[in-house]
């Protein structure tokens, strides 16, 4: 799947906490090729979400460089989009209007935004609730809506900030398969931040392991499991071995 194009390059990145100026991330290096699914795992407080926000361009690093599609500054939902942890849908907008929002901001034609929002909802497998308000949806449906919103601009880089963390196990597995299906159809590059090791191994090409104080990437585990992947993979010895490798790296980070 990887075409060799560098979608994300992070070089010797450092950032500091806003309040006390202590280093949060230091010496972070990573590269993501086009079409890869990469997971970032690490203990809470290791700065995984901060790293995601730096890549999204809403935070500035104190040192080092971030290149997304070879550029230093990137804006607009058509290149890079995000699914946050709590879906973060606007409560006063219907599902359709929430999905439409990114297109509306970039002054697209109105009829066009509706058409493309419906397509994105279909891609995220969420139909029949277009006119509902977010509070009327289940947690899984909210995440599907947030996923549709992230896909609506046909961004080539999808940032996922623990999007499945608040879901029950069954809904989470459904959304895992949904994400893989969308990836197969679009070839989108995915960067997933998670603290769920099983999820990271199941979804990714590579799992990057981080440690804390200050946060940095201490190693990676390559997941050489064939696509398409199905849930029964979780029961195989190979899967267990890869999970073990990630655990081992995490444990090294604590030492």
């Amino acid at each position, binding site marked *: 799947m990887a075409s060799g194009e560098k979608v994300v390059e992070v070089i010797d990145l450092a950032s500091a906490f806003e309040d006390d100026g202590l280093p949060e991330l230091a010496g972070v290096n990573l590269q993501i090729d086009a079409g890869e699914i990469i997971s970032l795992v690490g203990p809470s407080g290791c700065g995984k979400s901060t790293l995601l*926000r730096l890549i999204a361009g*809403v935070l500035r690093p104190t040192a080092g460089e971030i290149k997304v599609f070879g550029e230093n500054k990137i*804006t607009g*939902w058509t290149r890079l989009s*995000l699914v946050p942890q*709590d879906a*973060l849908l*606007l409560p*006063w907008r219907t599902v359709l209007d929430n999905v439409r929002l990114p297109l509306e*901001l970039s002054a697209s034609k109105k009829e066009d935004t509706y058409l493309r929002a419906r397509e994105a909802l279909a891609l995220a497998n969420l139909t029949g609730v277009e006119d509902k308000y977010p509070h009327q949806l289940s947690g899984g449906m909210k995440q599907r809506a947030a996923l549709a919103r992230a896909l609506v601009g046909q961004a080539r880089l999808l940032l996922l900030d623990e999007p499945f963390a608040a879901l029950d196990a069954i809904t989470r597995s459904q959304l895992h398969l949904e994400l893989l299906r969308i990836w197969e159809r679009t070839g989108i590059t995915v960067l997933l931040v998670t603290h769920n090791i099983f999820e990271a191994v199941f979804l990714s090409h590579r799992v990057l392991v981080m440690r804390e104080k200050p946060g940095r990437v201490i190693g990676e585990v390559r997941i050489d499991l064939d696509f398409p992947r199905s849930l029964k993979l979780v029961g195989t010895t190979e899967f267990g071995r890869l999970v073990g490798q990630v655990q081992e790296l995490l444990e090294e980070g604590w030492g």
Partner: protein
Amino acid sequence: MPGKVRGKSGLMSRYYEYFLLPVGLAGFLYLWEYLSGFYDPFILPSPRLVLERSLEFFNQPQLFFMHFLTTLGEAGGGFCLGALIALPVSYFLAKNPVLERLLTPYFVGIQAVPIVALAPLLVIWFGFGIASKVLVAALITFFSVLTTGIAGLRSTDPRLRELLAIMGATKWQIFFRLEFPSALPYIFSGLRLGGALAVIGAVSGEFAGAGKGLGYIVNFARGSFDTPLLFAAIIALAVLGIGFYLLFFIAEYLAMPWKRRR
């Protein structure tokens, strides 16, 4: 407040609601009638007497409408004036924390003074006419809308702000699509409070010195020991207050469809 989730089945509670209001009102009137039997009409006139006096009051349309509309106009005009000024000012202050901190002591000071004490001053400055009452109502509305407006505009979820920034939203897009709708529930609670206080403000102004309005009637009735007329004026003021309340209820329902009861 619309939007609350009901615990019991909707049908059952609605069935109750239809009876609750008239039964409660009948009970209240019966209790009032019963209690009025023990007292002189000067202390507690019976509902019947109040009704008679009200009809007498209402039967002179020129009198009734003049006084009612005067107070309505003062409260309504003052409310609109205060709210219209308060909204842009609250946006400005929400964006300028330093200025807000500088001005907050004065706001708290003015709000801490009972409006009945400020009203005479405004009457001295702006005369016995309508203008001084409009200003009393405007002043009291201004502060209630200002404080909730600032709180509302500050209530924006920073994560949503960040998300819209990633989408490439401009400052104005963030205001109209995020900050303003986030602030709406706060603004409406400020408007509701301001509406109720505007009536109090207008009546306080009339107390301080006026030749017309329901507050004037209250004063007049007290002076002539006409307790039934006093009650009639109180009921007219209650109608005014309920009218304001319903207006906001409808406005809120129309402005915030996502908060509607399912």
